[in-house]
Protein backbone atom coordinates (compact mmCIF):
# COMPACT_ATOMS: atom_id res chain seq x y z
CA UNK A 1 0.00 0.00 0.00
CA UNK A 2 1.48 3.33 -0.98
CA UNK A 3 1.83 6.35 1.25
CA UNK A 4 -1.01 8.05 -0.54
CA UNK A 5 -3.54 5.59 0.84
CA UNK A 6 -2.05 5.55 4.30
CA UNK A 7 -2.02 9.34 4.62
CA UNK A 8 -4.83 10.56 2.48
CA UNK A 9 -4.00 14.22 1.88
CA UNK A 10 -6.39 17.00 1.14
CA UNK A 11 -6.32 16.38 -2.61
CA UNK A 12 -7.20 12.73 -2.13
CA UNK A 13 -10.00 13.65 0.26
CA UNK A 14 -11.43 16.08 -2.28
CA UNK A 15 -11.31 13.35 -4.92
CA UNK A 16 -13.13 10.97 -2.60
CA UNK A 17 -15.85 13.53 -2.10
CA UNK A 18 -16.28 13.86 -5.85
CA UNK A 19 -17.32 10.24 -6.06
CA UNK A 20 -20.97 9.84 -5.21
CA UNK A 21 -20.70 7.84 -2.00
CA UNK A 22 -24.18 6.47 -2.25
CA UNK A 23 -24.99 3.61 0.06
CA UNK A 24 -25.17 0.19 -1.63
CA UNK A 25 -28.61 -0.63 -2.95
CA UNK A 26 -30.75 -2.95 -0.87
CA UNK A 27 -30.32 -5.73 -3.42
CA UNK A 28 -26.52 -5.49 -3.18
CA UNK A 29 -24.66 -8.70 -3.87
CA UNK A 30 -21.55 -7.91 -1.93
CA UNK A 31 -21.44 -6.49 1.58
CA UNK A 32 -18.99 -4.04 3.11
CA UNK A 33 -17.75 -6.87 5.33
CA UNK A 34 -16.93 -8.96 2.26
CA UNK A 35 -15.03 -6.08 0.73
CA UNK A 36 -13.04 -5.79 3.94
CA UNK A 37 -12.31 -9.51 3.90
CA UNK A 38 -11.12 -9.48 0.30
CA UNK A 39 -9.04 -6.38 0.97
CA UNK A 40 -7.38 -8.08 3.91
CA UNK A 41 -6.59 -11.17 1.82
CA UNK A 42 -5.00 -8.89 -0.78
CA UNK A 43 -3.13 -6.99 1.97
CA UNK A 44 -4.91 -3.76 1.03
CA UNK A 45 -5.60 -1.16 3.65
CA UNK A 46 -8.78 0.74 2.76
CA UNK A 47 -10.04 3.97 4.27
CA UNK A 48 -13.72 4.02 5.37
CA UNK A 49 -14.55 6.09 2.28
CA UNK A 50 -12.77 3.62 0.01
CA UNK A 51 -14.69 0.72 1.52
CA UNK A 52 -17.98 2.41 0.67
CA UNK A 53 -16.79 3.36 -2.81
CA UNK A 54 -15.45 -0.09 -3.68
CA UNK A 55 -18.55 -1.80 -2.33
CA UNK A 56 -20.67 0.35 -4.65
CA UNK A 57 -18.37 -0.21 -7.61
CA UNK A 58 -18.10 -3.96 -7.11
CA UNK A 59 -21.87 -4.23 -6.91
CA UNK A 60 -22.20 -2.26 -10.12
CA UNK A 61 -19.79 -4.69 -11.80
CA UNK A 62 -21.72 -7.69 -10.55
CA UNK A 63 -24.95 -6.18 -11.80
CA UNK A 64 -23.41 -5.67 -15.21
CA UNK A 65 -22.26 -9.27 -15.26
CA UNK A 66 -25.76 -10.33 -14.25
CA UNK A 67 -27.00 -9.06 -17.60
CA UNK A 68 -25.23 -12.01 -19.20
CA UNK A 69 -27.79 -14.23 -17.52
CA UNK A 70 -30.31 -13.06 -20.09
CA UNK A 71 -28.48 -15.09 -22.70
CA UNK A 72 -29.63 -18.64 -23.34
CA UNK A 73 -26.56 -20.81 -22.73
CA UNK A 74 -28.36 -24.15 -22.49
CA UNK A 75 -26.55 -25.39 -25.58
CA UNK A 76 -23.11 -24.02 -24.65
CA UNK A 77 -20.47 -26.16 -22.94
CA UNK A 78 -19.12 -24.57 -19.77
CA UNK A 79 -15.51 -23.50 -20.08
CA UNK A 80 -12.87 -21.65 -18.11
CA UNK A 81 -11.21 -20.44 -21.28
CA UNK A 82 -12.07 -17.83 -23.84
CA UNK A 83 -9.62 -19.05 -26.50
CA UNK A 84 -10.24 -22.46 -28.06
CA UNK A 85 -6.70 -23.73 -27.57
CA UNK A 86 -5.15 -26.65 -25.76
CA UNK A 87 -1.78 -28.34 -25.16
CA UNK A 88 0.59 -25.46 -25.66
CA UNK A 89 3.90 -26.93 -24.59
CA UNK A 90 7.59 -26.14 -24.63
CA UNK A 91 10.30 -28.81 -24.84
CA UNK A 92 12.28 -29.55 -21.66
CA UNK A 93 15.31 -27.47 -22.59
CA UNK A 94 17.39 -25.33 -20.29
CA UNK A 95 17.85 -21.74 -21.35
CA UNK A 96 20.07 -19.20 -19.65
CA UNK A 97 18.65 -17.55 -16.55
CA UNK A 98 19.11 -13.85 -15.93
CA UNK A 99 22.24 -12.37 -14.37
CA UNK A 100 21.78 -12.14 -10.64
CA UNK A 101 22.36 -8.35 -10.57
CA UNK A 102 19.35 -7.93 -12.83
CA UNK A 103 17.21 -10.33 -10.81
CA UNK A 104 18.03 -8.43 -7.61
CA UNK A 105 17.78 -5.02 -9.28
CA UNK A 106 14.38 -4.19 -7.77
CA UNK A 107 15.04 -5.76 -4.38
CA UNK A 108 14.94 -3.10 -1.68
CA UNK A 109 17.43 -4.96 0.54
CA UNK A 110 19.57 -7.47 -1.37
CA UNK A 111 22.07 -9.30 0.84
CA UNK A 112 24.75 -11.82 -0.24
CA UNK A 113 22.86 -12.59 -3.44
CA UNK A 114 19.56 -13.12 -1.63
CA UNK A 115 16.36 -11.13 -1.35
CA UNK A 116 16.27 -10.03 2.26
CA UNK A 117 12.73 -9.92 3.69
CA UNK A 118 11.44 -8.63 7.03
CA UNK A 119 10.43 -10.87 9.93
CA UNK A 120 8.08 -13.61 8.69
CA UNK A 121 6.51 -14.67 11.99
CA UNK A 122 5.84 -12.57 15.06
CA UNK A 123 7.08 -13.96 18.32
CA UNK A 124 4.18 -15.26 20.38
Amino acid at each position, binding site marked *: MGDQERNPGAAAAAKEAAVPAEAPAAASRISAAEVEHVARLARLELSPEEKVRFTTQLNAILEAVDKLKALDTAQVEPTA*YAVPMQNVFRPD*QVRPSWPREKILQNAPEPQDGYFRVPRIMEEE
Partner: protein
Amino acid sequence: MPLEDYEIVIGLEVHAELLTESKLFCGCSTKFGAEPNTHVCPVCLGLPGVLPVLNEKAVEYAVRAGLALNCEIASFSKFDRKNYFYPDLPKAYQISQYDLPLCRNGWVEIALPPADENSPARTKRIGIIRVHLEEEAGKSVHSSETIVGSEYSLEDYNRVGIPLIEIVSKPDIRSPQEARLYAESLRTILLYAGVSDCKMEEGSLRVDANISLRPRGATEFGTRTEIKNINSFRSIERALAYEAARQAQVLDEGGQVVQETRAWDELHGVTVAMRSKEEAQDYRYFPEPDLVPVVTSREWVEKIRASLPELPLARQERFQRQYGLPAYDAALLTETRDMADFFEEAARQWHDPKAVANWLMGDFTRLLKEHGLEVSQSRLRPGHLVGMLKLMEKGVISGKIAKTVFEEMFLSGQDAEQIVKDKGLVQIADTGELEGIIQRIIAANPQPAEDFRKGKEKALGFFVGQVMRETKGRANPALVNELLRKLLTAGQ
Protein backbone atom coordinates in the same frame (compact mmCIF):
# COMPACT_ATOMS: atom_id res chain seq x y z
CA MET B 1 -8.53 -44.63 27.78
CA PRO B 2 -5.29 -46.13 26.51
CA LEU B 3 -4.09 -45.28 23.04
CA GLU B 4 -4.94 -48.83 21.93
CA ASP B 5 -8.65 -48.05 22.38
CA TYR B 6 -8.45 -45.26 19.83
CA GLU B 7 -8.30 -45.83 16.13
CA ILE B 8 -5.61 -43.70 14.48
CA VAL B 9 -6.58 -42.23 11.12
CA ILE B 10 -3.81 -40.84 8.92
CA GLY B 11 -3.64 -39.38 5.43
CA LEU B 12 -0.42 -38.21 3.79
CA GLU B 13 0.30 -35.43 1.33
CA VAL B 14 3.55 -36.13 -0.44
CA HIS B 15 5.33 -33.63 -2.67
CA ALA B 16 7.94 -34.89 -5.13
CA GLU B 17 10.07 -32.76 -7.44
CA LEU B 18 10.10 -34.07 -11.00
CA LEU B 19 13.35 -34.87 -12.79
CA THR B 20 13.03 -32.40 -15.64
CA GLU B 21 16.08 -30.43 -16.76
CA SER B 22 14.21 -27.14 -16.88
CA LYS B 23 11.46 -25.59 -14.77
CA LEU B 24 7.72 -26.08 -15.19
CA PHE B 25 6.97 -22.80 -16.95
CA CYS B 26 10.33 -21.41 -18.11
CA GLY B 27 13.77 -22.54 -19.29
CA CYS B 28 15.66 -21.99 -16.02
CA SER B 29 17.70 -24.96 -14.82
CA THR B 30 16.40 -27.20 -12.02
CA LYS B 31 19.87 -28.27 -10.92
CA PHE B 32 20.32 -28.53 -7.14
CA GLY B 33 22.94 -26.58 -5.22
CA ALA B 34 23.58 -23.54 -7.45
CA GLU B 35 24.54 -20.15 -6.03
CA PRO B 36 21.42 -18.37 -4.72
CA ASN B 37 19.23 -16.63 -7.28
CA THR B 38 21.26 -17.71 -10.31
CA HIS B 39 18.51 -19.95 -11.78
CA VAL B 40 15.94 -17.21 -11.91
CA CYS B 41 14.25 -15.27 -14.71
CA PRO B 42 11.31 -12.84 -14.97
CA VAL B 43 8.86 -15.78 -15.33
CA CYS B 44 10.04 -17.17 -11.97
CA LEU B 45 9.54 -13.77 -10.37
CA GLY B 46 6.20 -13.12 -12.05
CA LEU B 47 7.32 -9.76 -13.41
CA PRO B 48 4.70 -7.88 -15.43
CA GLY B 49 4.28 -9.02 -19.00
CA VAL B 50 5.72 -12.51 -18.75
CA LEU B 51 3.87 -15.65 -19.85
CA PRO B 52 4.39 -19.17 -18.49
CA VAL B 53 4.69 -21.96 -21.07
CA LEU B 54 4.13 -25.52 -19.87
CA ASN B 55 7.02 -28.02 -19.95
CA GLU B 56 5.74 -31.08 -21.83
CA LYS B 57 8.13 -33.45 -20.07
CA ALA B 58 6.70 -32.43 -16.68
CA VAL B 59 3.21 -33.38 -17.84
CA GLU B 60 4.56 -36.70 -19.10
CA TYR B 61 6.29 -37.40 -15.77
CA ALA B 62 3.17 -36.53 -13.79
CA VAL B 63 1.12 -38.90 -15.95
CA ARG B 64 3.82 -41.54 -15.57
CA ALA B 65 3.68 -41.17 -11.79
CA GLY B 66 -0.12 -41.35 -11.88
CA LEU B 67 -0.03 -44.56 -13.90
CA ALA B 68 2.57 -46.12 -11.60
CA LEU B 69 0.19 -45.30 -8.73
CA ASN B 70 -2.74 -46.96 -10.53
CA CYS B 71 -4.58 -43.69 -11.17
CA GLU B 72 -7.07 -42.73 -13.85
CA ILE B 73 -5.60 -40.07 -16.11
CA ALA B 74 -7.87 -37.12 -16.83
CA SER B 75 -8.54 -36.53 -20.51
CA PHE B 76 -9.08 -32.83 -19.70
CA SER B 77 -7.09 -31.05 -17.07
CA LYS B 78 -6.35 -27.43 -16.23
CA PHE B 79 -4.24 -25.19 -14.02
CA ASP B 80 -5.45 -22.81 -11.33
CA ARG B 81 -3.99 -19.99 -9.29
CA LYS B 82 -3.70 -20.51 -5.57
CA ASN B 83 -3.36 -17.07 -4.01
CA TYR B 84 -1.44 -16.46 -0.80
CA PHE B 85 1.33 -14.26 0.53
CA TYR B 86 4.55 -15.78 1.67
CA PRO B 87 8.11 -14.56 1.06
CA ASP B 88 9.15 -17.78 -0.71
CA LEU B 89 6.47 -17.17 -3.35
CA PRO B 90 7.49 -14.09 -5.34
CA LYS B 91 4.37 -14.04 -7.54
CA ALA B 92 2.08 -14.18 -4.48
CA TYR B 93 0.31 -17.07 -6.18
CA GLN B 94 1.25 -20.64 -6.96
CA ILE B 95 0.18 -22.21 -10.22
CA SER B 96 -1.40 -25.49 -9.17
CA GLN B 97 -4.39 -27.63 -10.07
CA TYR B 98 -7.64 -27.35 -8.17
CA ASP B 99 -10.73 -29.14 -9.44
CA LEU B 100 -9.36 -30.94 -12.48
CA PRO B 101 -6.08 -32.66 -11.49
CA LEU B 102 -4.18 -34.77 -14.01
CA CYS B 103 -4.63 -38.03 -12.07
CA ARG B 104 -7.26 -39.42 -9.69
CA ASN B 105 -8.38 -42.57 -7.87
CA GLY B 106 -5.22 -44.58 -7.52
CA TRP B 107 -3.77 -46.88 -4.92
CA VAL B 108 -0.53 -48.22 -3.54
CA GLU B 109 -0.10 -51.64 -2.05
CA ILE B 110 2.18 -51.75 0.97
CA ALA B 111 3.79 -54.89 2.38
CA LEU B 112 3.07 -55.11 6.11
CA PRO B 113 5.59 -56.99 8.21
CA PRO B 114 4.34 -60.52 8.98
CA ALA B 115 2.91 -61.01 12.49
CA ASP B 116 5.73 -63.47 13.18
CA GLU B 117 8.33 -65.41 11.23
CA ASN B 118 5.98 -68.20 10.19
CA SER B 119 3.08 -66.02 9.09
CA PRO B 120 2.68 -65.07 5.47
CA ALA B 121 3.46 -61.51 4.40
CA ARG B 122 0.40 -59.27 4.37
CA THR B 123 -0.34 -56.42 2.03
CA LYS B 124 -2.67 -53.47 2.40
CA ARG B 125 -4.02 -51.12 -0.19
CA ILE B 126 -3.81 -47.38 0.51
CA GLY B 127 -6.06 -45.29 -1.71
CA ILE B 128 -4.83 -42.20 -3.55
CA ILE B 129 -7.33 -39.40 -4.06
CA ARG B 130 -5.35 -37.40 -6.59
CA VAL B 131 -1.99 -36.55 -8.08
CA HIS B 132 -1.65 -33.04 -9.43
CA LEU B 133 1.06 -30.95 -11.01
CA GLU B 134 2.18 -27.64 -9.52
CA GLU B 135 5.18 -25.36 -9.19
CA GLU B 136 7.69 -25.35 -6.35
CA ALA B 137 8.26 -22.37 -4.03
CA GLY B 138 11.61 -20.84 -3.06
CA LYS B 139 13.88 -21.51 -0.12
CA SER B 140 14.13 -19.29 2.95
CA VAL B 141 17.27 -18.98 5.03
CA HIS B 142 16.36 -17.56 8.43
CA SER B 143 18.59 -15.14 10.31
CA SER B 144 18.48 -17.24 13.46
CA GLU B 145 17.83 -20.87 14.22
CA THR B 146 14.05 -20.78 14.12
CA ILE B 147 11.68 -18.85 11.94
CA VAL B 148 9.94 -17.36 14.98
CA GLY B 149 13.19 -16.07 16.42
CA SER B 150 14.36 -14.59 13.12
CA GLU B 151 14.42 -10.86 12.62
CA TYR B 152 14.75 -11.29 8.89
CA SER B 153 15.06 -14.05 6.29
CA LEU B 154 16.97 -14.43 3.04
CA GLU B 155 15.14 -15.72 -0.02
CA ASP B 156 16.67 -17.89 -2.73
CA TYR B 157 14.32 -18.28 -5.70
CA ASN B 158 16.31 -20.94 -7.59
CA ARG B 159 13.75 -23.56 -6.61
CA VAL B 160 10.76 -21.43 -7.62
CA GLY B 161 8.98 -23.06 -10.53
CA ILE B 162 10.57 -26.51 -10.36
CA PRO B 163 7.81 -28.99 -11.27
CA LEU B 164 6.25 -30.83 -8.35
CA ILE B 165 3.62 -33.50 -8.05
CA GLU B 166 1.44 -33.59 -4.97
CA ILE B 167 0.12 -37.03 -4.08
CA VAL B 168 -2.83 -37.00 -1.71
CA SER B 169 -3.73 -40.28 -0.02
CA LYS B 170 -7.11 -41.30 1.31
CA PRO B 171 -7.34 -41.44 5.11
CA ASP B 172 -6.68 -45.18 4.85
CA ILE B 173 -3.58 -45.31 7.01
CA ARG B 174 -4.10 -46.72 10.50
CA SER B 175 -0.73 -46.51 12.25
CA PRO B 176 2.50 -44.51 12.23
CA GLN B 177 4.26 -47.61 10.91
CA GLU B 178 1.82 -47.92 7.98
CA ALA B 179 2.42 -44.23 7.23
CA ARG B 180 6.14 -44.83 7.00
CA LEU B 181 5.70 -47.94 4.85
CA TYR B 182 3.36 -46.06 2.55
CA ALA B 183 5.81 -43.17 2.14
CA GLU B 184 8.66 -45.60 1.50
CA SER B 185 6.58 -47.46 -1.08
CA LEU B 186 5.75 -44.19 -2.82
CA ARG B 187 9.44 -43.34 -2.94
CA THR B 188 10.37 -46.71 -4.38
CA ILE B 189 7.63 -46.52 -6.99
CA LEU B 190 8.57 -42.98 -8.06
CA LEU B 191 12.23 -44.03 -8.30
CA TYR B 192 11.31 -47.04 -10.45
CA ALA B 193 9.12 -44.87 -12.65
CA GLY B 194 12.12 -42.56 -13.03
CA VAL B 195 10.17 -39.37 -12.38
CA SER B 196 11.85 -38.05 -9.21
CA ASP B 197 15.08 -38.63 -7.31
CA CYS B 198 13.09 -38.53 -4.05
CA LYS B 199 15.90 -37.19 -1.87
CA MET B 200 14.34 -36.19 1.42
CA GLU B 201 17.59 -34.60 2.57
CA GLU B 202 17.59 -32.28 -0.47
CA GLY B 203 13.89 -31.61 -0.13
CA SER B 204 12.95 -33.24 -3.43
CA LEU B 205 10.53 -35.46 -1.47
CA ARG B 206 8.48 -33.97 1.34
CA VAL B 207 5.81 -35.49 3.52
CA ASP B 208 3.01 -33.74 5.41
CA ALA B 209 0.67 -35.84 7.52
CA ASN B 210 -2.93 -35.39 8.66
CA ILE B 211 -3.79 -37.36 11.78
CA SER B 212 -6.86 -37.76 13.97
CA LEU B 213 -8.11 -40.20 16.58
CA ARG B 214 -11.53 -41.71 17.12
CA PRO B 215 -12.82 -44.32 19.55
CA ARG B 216 -12.59 -47.78 17.97
CA GLY B 217 -15.82 -48.57 16.18
CA ALA B 218 -16.76 -44.93 15.59
CA THR B 219 -17.58 -43.96 12.02
CA GLU B 220 -17.09 -40.18 12.22
CA PHE B 221 -13.58 -38.81 11.95
CA GLY B 222 -12.11 -36.92 14.90
CA THR B 223 -10.58 -33.47 14.59
CA ARG B 224 -7.27 -33.65 12.76
CA THR B 225 -3.99 -31.85 12.96
CA GLU B 226 -1.52 -31.45 10.12
CA ILE B 227 2.13 -32.25 10.82
CA LYS B 228 4.77 -30.47 8.76
CA ASN B 229 8.55 -30.30 8.79
CA ILE B 230 9.01 -34.08 8.71
CA ASN B 231 12.50 -34.58 7.31
CA SER B 232 13.14 -38.32 7.18
CA PHE B 233 11.26 -41.61 6.85
CA ARG B 234 12.11 -42.38 10.44
CA SER B 235 10.61 -39.06 11.54
CA ILE B 236 7.30 -39.92 9.86
CA GLU B 237 6.84 -42.75 12.30
CA ARG B 238 8.23 -40.85 15.30
CA ALA B 239 6.26 -37.66 14.67
CA LEU B 240 2.98 -39.51 14.18
CA ALA B 241 3.50 -41.74 17.22
CA TYR B 242 4.13 -38.64 19.30
CA GLU B 243 1.12 -36.82 17.89
CA ALA B 244 -1.23 -39.80 18.38
CA ALA B 245 -0.20 -40.03 22.05
CA ARG B 246 -0.59 -36.26 22.45
CA GLN B 247 -4.11 -36.27 20.98
CA ALA B 248 -5.10 -39.27 23.14
CA GLN B 249 -4.00 -37.38 26.22
CA VAL B 250 -5.93 -34.25 25.21
CA LEU B 251 -9.07 -36.33 24.66
CA ASP B 252 -8.61 -38.30 27.87
CA GLU B 253 -8.40 -35.11 29.83
CA GLY B 254 -11.78 -34.12 28.43
CA GLY B 255 -10.25 -31.61 26.06
CA GLN B 256 -10.73 -31.12 22.34
CA VAL B 257 -8.11 -31.45 19.65
CA VAL B 258 -7.63 -28.10 17.96
CA GLN B 259 -7.53 -28.25 14.18
CA GLU B 260 -4.15 -26.72 13.47
CA THR B 261 -0.82 -27.11 11.74
CA ARG B 262 1.96 -28.45 13.93
CA ALA B 263 5.66 -28.63 13.20
CA TRP B 264 7.76 -31.69 14.03
CA ASP B 265 10.74 -30.74 16.18
CA GLU B 266 13.29 -33.44 15.41
CA LEU B 267 15.70 -32.39 18.15
CA HIS B 268 13.21 -32.58 21.01
CA GLY B 269 11.01 -35.29 19.50
CA VAL B 270 7.79 -33.30 19.83
CA THR B 271 5.25 -31.55 17.63
CA VAL B 272 4.60 -27.87 18.33
CA ALA B 273 1.69 -25.72 17.23
CA MET B 274 2.52 -23.34 14.42
CA ARG B 275 0.57 -20.12 14.74
CA SER B 276 -3.05 -21.10 14.26
CA LYS B 277 -4.71 -19.28 11.43
CA GLU B 278 -6.93 -16.43 12.55
CA GLU B 279 -9.15 -16.98 9.57
CA ALA B 280 -9.77 -20.04 7.49
CA GLN B 281 -7.41 -20.36 4.54
CA ASP B 282 -8.95 -18.64 1.58
CA TYR B 283 -6.83 -19.28 -1.48
CA ARG B 284 -9.33 -17.83 -3.96
CA TYR B 285 -8.45 -20.41 -6.61
CA PHE B 286 -9.35 -19.40 -10.13
CA PRO B 287 -8.44 -20.83 -13.52
CA GLU B 288 -4.95 -19.72 -14.56
CA PRO B 289 -5.62 -17.29 -17.41
CA ASP B 290 -2.06 -17.50 -18.81
CA LEU B 291 -2.24 -21.23 -19.59
CA VAL B 292 -4.49 -23.30 -21.80
CA PRO B 293 -5.94 -26.67 -20.75
CA VAL B 294 -4.13 -29.99 -21.14
CA VAL B 295 -5.92 -32.65 -23.13
CA THR B 296 -4.40 -36.13 -23.03
CA SER B 297 -5.06 -38.64 -25.76
CA ARG B 298 -5.60 -42.29 -24.95
CA GLU B 299 -2.75 -43.27 -27.28
CA TRP B 300 -0.30 -41.03 -25.49
CA VAL B 301 -1.31 -42.31 -22.06
CA GLU B 302 -1.07 -45.92 -23.22
CA LYS B 303 2.35 -45.27 -24.70
CA ILE B 304 3.55 -43.99 -21.33
CA ARG B 305 1.96 -46.95 -19.56
CA ALA B 306 3.76 -49.37 -21.85
CA SER B 307 7.10 -47.76 -21.05
CA LEU B 308 6.78 -48.27 -17.29
CA PRO B 309 9.11 -50.89 -15.82
CA GLU B 310 7.98 -53.78 -13.64
CA LEU B 311 7.07 -52.04 -10.36
CA PRO B 312 8.65 -52.82 -6.97
CA LEU B 313 6.00 -54.99 -5.33
CA ALA B 314 5.52 -57.14 -8.42
CA ARG B 315 9.26 -57.54 -8.74
CA GLN B 316 9.60 -58.42 -5.07
CA GLU B 317 7.04 -61.20 -5.44
CA ARG B 318 8.76 -62.48 -8.58
CA PHE B 319 12.17 -62.53 -6.83
CA GLN B 320 10.70 -64.82 -4.17
CA ARG B 321 9.05 -67.06 -6.76
CA GLN B 322 11.75 -67.18 -9.40
CA TYR B 323 14.91 -67.12 -7.28
CA GLY B 324 13.56 -68.63 -4.07
CA LEU B 325 14.65 -65.63 -2.00
CA PRO B 326 13.20 -64.95 1.45
CA ALA B 327 10.70 -62.05 1.57
CA TYR B 328 13.21 -59.96 3.51
CA ASP B 329 15.93 -60.33 0.85
CA ALA B 330 13.49 -59.69 -1.97
CA ALA B 331 12.26 -56.49 -0.31
CA LEU B 332 15.77 -55.22 0.31
CA LEU B 333 17.04 -55.99 -3.18
CA THR B 334 14.07 -54.37 -4.93
CA GLU B 335 14.30 -51.15 -2.96
CA THR B 336 16.00 -49.52 -5.93
CA ARG B 337 15.73 -50.48 -9.54
CA ASP B 338 19.50 -50.39 -9.97
CA MET B 339 20.10 -52.88 -7.16
CA ALA B 340 17.36 -55.18 -8.45
CA ASP B 341 18.83 -55.04 -11.96
CA PHE B 342 22.30 -55.75 -10.55
CA PHE B 343 21.00 -58.77 -8.69
CA GLU B 344 19.18 -60.18 -11.69
CA GLU B 345 22.14 -59.77 -14.00
CA ALA B 346 24.37 -61.66 -11.56
CA ALA B 347 21.74 -64.24 -10.62
CA ARG B 348 21.19 -65.11 -14.28
CA GLN B 349 24.86 -66.15 -14.51
CA TRP B 350 25.10 -68.02 -11.23
CA HIS B 351 23.34 -71.14 -9.93
CA ASP B 352 23.02 -69.92 -6.33
CA PRO B 353 20.88 -66.73 -6.20
CA LYS B 354 20.96 -66.66 -2.40
CA ALA B 355 24.77 -66.37 -2.45
CA VAL B 356 24.47 -63.43 -4.86
CA ALA B 357 21.85 -61.84 -2.60
CA ASN B 358 24.07 -62.22 0.48
CA TRP B 359 27.04 -60.49 -1.14
CA LEU B 360 24.84 -57.64 -2.35
CA MET B 361 23.01 -57.11 0.94
CA GLY B 362 26.21 -57.49 2.96
CA ASP B 363 29.59 -56.34 1.67
CA PHE B 364 28.29 -54.50 -1.40
CA THR B 365 25.74 -52.39 0.52
CA ARG B 366 28.30 -51.67 3.23
CA LEU B 367 30.96 -50.53 0.74
CA LEU B 368 28.48 -48.36 -1.18
CA LYS B 369 27.52 -46.67 2.07
CA GLU B 370 31.11 -46.21 3.20
CA HIS B 371 32.07 -44.58 -0.08
CA GLY B 372 28.83 -42.64 -0.48
CA LEU B 373 28.10 -44.23 -3.85
CA GLU B 374 24.96 -45.32 -5.67
CA VAL B 375 24.74 -48.72 -7.33
CA SER B 376 25.00 -47.02 -10.71
CA GLN B 377 28.34 -45.45 -9.73
CA SER B 378 29.93 -48.71 -8.62
CA ARG B 379 32.97 -49.94 -10.58
CA LEU B 380 32.17 -53.44 -9.42
CA ARG B 381 29.66 -54.91 -11.86
CA PRO B 382 27.64 -58.14 -11.78
CA GLY B 383 30.28 -59.97 -13.86
CA HIS B 384 32.90 -59.27 -11.21
CA LEU B 385 30.82 -60.88 -8.49
CA VAL B 386 30.12 -63.95 -10.62
CA GLY B 387 33.83 -64.30 -11.43
CA MET B 388 34.65 -64.26 -7.74
CA LEU B 389 31.94 -66.79 -6.89
CA LYS B 390 33.48 -69.12 -9.49
CA LEU B 391 36.90 -68.88 -7.83
CA MET B 392 35.33 -69.64 -4.47
CA GLU B 393 33.54 -72.68 -5.82
CA LYS B 394 36.71 -74.03 -7.40
CA GLY B 395 38.47 -73.63 -4.06
CA VAL B 396 40.97 -71.15 -5.47
CA ILE B 397 40.05 -68.66 -2.73
CA SER B 398 38.48 -69.10 0.69
CA GLY B 399 35.44 -67.20 1.93
CA LYS B 400 37.71 -65.01 4.00
CA ILE B 401 39.97 -64.11 1.08
CA ALA B 402 36.85 -63.51 -1.00
CA LYS B 403 35.96 -60.58 1.24
CA THR B 404 39.36 -59.02 0.51
CA VAL B 405 38.98 -59.71 -3.21
CA PHE B 406 35.46 -58.24 -3.20
CA GLU B 407 36.62 -55.02 -1.62
CA GLU B 408 39.56 -54.84 -4.03
CA MET B 409 37.20 -55.33 -7.00
CA PHE B 410 34.97 -52.61 -5.59
CA LEU B 411 37.87 -50.17 -5.32
CA SER B 412 39.74 -50.94 -8.54
CA GLY B 413 37.12 -52.36 -10.86
CA GLN B 414 39.54 -55.19 -11.72
CA ASP B 415 38.22 -58.73 -11.99
CA ALA B 416 38.70 -61.34 -9.29
CA GLU B 417 41.14 -63.54 -11.21
CA GLN B 418 43.47 -60.62 -11.86
CA ILE B 419 43.43 -59.52 -8.22
CA VAL B 420 44.06 -63.03 -6.91
CA LYS B 421 47.01 -63.37 -9.32
CA ASP B 422 48.52 -59.94 -8.65
CA LYS B 423 48.23 -60.14 -4.89
CA GLY B 424 49.13 -63.81 -4.59
CA LEU B 425 45.89 -64.61 -2.85
CA VAL B 426 45.57 -68.16 -4.18
CA GLN B 427 44.51 -70.49 -1.42
CA ILE B 428 47.24 -72.82 -0.15
CA ALA B 429 45.75 -76.24 -0.48
CA ASP B 430 49.12 -77.93 -0.93
CA THR B 431 49.54 -80.36 1.98
CA GLY B 432 53.33 -80.35 1.79
CA GLU B 433 53.65 -76.58 1.88
CA LEU B 434 51.20 -76.26 4.78
CA GLU B 435 52.85 -79.09 6.76
CA GLY B 436 56.15 -77.23 6.66
CA ILE B 437 54.57 -74.04 7.96
CA ILE B 438 52.64 -75.87 10.69
CA GLN B 439 55.69 -77.78 11.91
CA ARG B 440 57.63 -74.55 12.27
CA ILE B 441 54.80 -72.96 14.27
CA ILE B 442 54.44 -75.96 16.58
CA ALA B 443 58.18 -75.98 17.21
CA ALA B 444 58.10 -72.30 18.10
CA ASN B 445 55.20 -72.70 20.53
CA PRO B 446 55.86 -75.71 22.75
CA GLN B 447 53.58 -74.61 25.60
CA PRO B 448 50.29 -74.30 23.68
CA ALA B 449 51.20 -77.55 21.89
CA GLU B 450 51.56 -79.24 25.25
CA ASP B 451 48.23 -77.74 26.38
CA PHE B 452 46.49 -79.19 23.36
CA ARG B 453 47.93 -82.62 23.96
CA LYS B 454 46.61 -82.44 27.51
CA GLY B 455 43.15 -82.00 26.05
CA LYS B 456 42.80 -78.24 25.92
CA GLU B 457 40.81 -77.87 22.68
CA LYS B 458 41.06 -74.11 22.82
CA ALA B 459 44.76 -74.25 22.04
CA LEU B 460 43.86 -75.43 18.54
CA GLY B 461 42.28 -72.06 17.85
CA PHE B 462 45.57 -70.40 18.74
CA PHE B 463 47.42 -72.49 16.16
CA VAL B 464 44.80 -71.88 13.46
CA GLY B 465 45.21 -68.17 14.06
CA GLN B 466 49.00 -68.43 13.79
CA VAL B 467 48.82 -70.39 10.54
CA MET B 468 46.36 -67.89 9.06
CA ARG B 469 48.61 -65.02 10.05
CA GLU B 470 51.62 -66.72 8.54
CA THR B 471 49.78 -67.41 5.27
CA LYS B 472 47.93 -64.07 5.25
CA GLY B 473 44.65 -65.93 5.36
CA ARG B 474 45.35 -67.96 2.26
CA ALA B 475 45.40 -71.38 3.90
CA ASN B 476 42.44 -73.66 3.29
CA PRO B 477 40.78 -73.68 6.75
CA ALA B 478 39.56 -77.28 6.63
CA LEU B 479 42.98 -78.52 5.62
CA VAL B 480 44.70 -76.46 8.33
CA ASN B 481 42.50 -78.02 11.03
CA GLU B 482 43.10 -81.50 9.77
CA LEU B 483 46.89 -81.07 9.53
CA LEU B 484 47.16 -79.35 12.91
CA ARG B 485 45.41 -82.21 14.69
CA LYS B 486 47.56 -84.73 12.91
CA LEU B 487 50.88 -82.98 13.54
CA LEU B 488 50.17 -81.87 17.11
CA THR B 489 49.44 -85.42 18.20
CA ALA B 490 52.09 -86.99 15.94
CA GLY B 491 54.89 -86.87 18.46
CA GLN B 492 52.97 -88.85 21.09
